[in-house]
């Protein structure tokens, strides 16, 4: 059976892709952000996961308002990164793992999660920026694992509750641990932390709330399910609702985790950037 090694979260700001392309690692603006990743790289080198579940939220590339799945799971041989409207160069396709995708879908629907399966899914910065951050040169890093993208709706309300996100993660973890292959799996939760792009409140960041989330997601994620969705918008900002991806990741790890590294920095673009690496108890 497969093993879940741990989970890694990161913000997935589009500007990061540009900073990577220009190698701004030591630039004074970017250094405090990129300094959060060497420990992640070392951990990945040591454990070499075979599969990566990339939990992200689409921002208007893979899905539009004509059909908006609350939870979508990729079930394709590969995932294409495409133009998001800014004409930036796209990365080469990321290799999929359709056998694992369908195993997850079977297991989760049996556990009463109604999934939208996607045999074609273009992936945006929410998916690719974390891949670039964790596996430099992605998708051409020699250690690049095969991937299953999972996208949750944070574009249009009603969005899932934090409780549902955590439950989703638990069912996902159960699915992964029953995959009949001696494989190592890492789970990514991307997006956040607090930020707001729209309205008169654009630029809103909430350090205190982010710290509360970072503290609790490690050892007491249940506490965070008390936060209502409207409270999440109020305290994390309209786009800070991406924290739902972190909750989904966290649910899949099980109760017992060890924090390996954490980074938090304000601001990158309009966002409070957070990174966290949690290892599952063996």
């Amino acid at each position, binding site marked *: 059976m497969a093993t879940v090694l741990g989970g890694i979260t990161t913000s997935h700001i589009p500007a990061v892709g540009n900073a990577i392309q220009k190698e701004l690692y030591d630039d004074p603006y970017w250094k405090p952000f990129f300094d959060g990743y060497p420990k992640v790289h070392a951990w990945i080198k040591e454990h070499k996961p075979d599969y990566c579940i990339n939990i992200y939220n689409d921002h208007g590339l893979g899905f539009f308002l004509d059909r908006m799945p609350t939870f979508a799971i990729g079930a394709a041989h590969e995932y294409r990164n495409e133009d998001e409207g800014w004409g930036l160069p796209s990365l080469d396709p990321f290799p999929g793992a359709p056998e694992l995708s369908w195993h997850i879908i079977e297991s989760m629907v049996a556990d009463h999660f109604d999934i939208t399966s996607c045999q074609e899914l273009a992936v945006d910065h929410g998916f690719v920026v974390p891949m670039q951050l964790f596996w430099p040169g992605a998708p051409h890093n020699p250690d690049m694992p095969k991937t299953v993208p999972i996208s949750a709706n944070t574009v249009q*309300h009603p969005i899932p509750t934090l409780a549902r996100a955590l439950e989703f993660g638990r069912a996902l973890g159960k699915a992964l641990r029953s995959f009949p292959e001696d494989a190592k799996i890492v789970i990514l939760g991307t997006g956040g932390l607090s930020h707001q792009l729209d309205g008169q409140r654009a630029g809103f960041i909430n350090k205190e709330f982010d710290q509360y989330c970072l503290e609790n997601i490690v050892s007491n994620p249940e506490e965070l399910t008390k936060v209502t969705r409207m409270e999440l918008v109020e305290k994390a900002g309209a786009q800070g609702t991406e924290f739902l991806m972190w909750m989904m990741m966290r649910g899949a790890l099980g109760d017992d985790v060890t924090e390996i590294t954490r980074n938090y920095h304000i601001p990158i673009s309009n966002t409070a950037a957070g990174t966290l690496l949690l290892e599952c108890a063996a």
Partner: protein
Amino acid sequence: MDQPGYDYHIDIPGTTIFDGKQAMKGYALNKMCYDFNRAENREGFKADEEGWMEKYGLNEGQKQAIRDRDILKMIEEGGNIYYLAKLAGIFKLSVQDVGGLQTGRTTEEFQDYLKSQA
């Protein structure tokens, strides 16, 4: 579309909850912006803004908001920031430019505001 009798939301000053009501109101505007994912549609818009907005069936309020480059108005008209970001790209506006425009700050002032929250 109106949903009388029940309020799903709380009031958060300076924040529009993009829900079913807004999503229906802004559908044409958001669809036009979503289609800007393709370069040929960006070129089509740039070549003939009025004709392009007409083709997607934008209403007068949405058209005027675009003519005025008025982001807050676009949101009021049902625009969602993730789709509007593609339009902002055509206007060569960065995320911080857009932040400044919505909050009455210069881009530099907006960046300073972001930093002040560290």
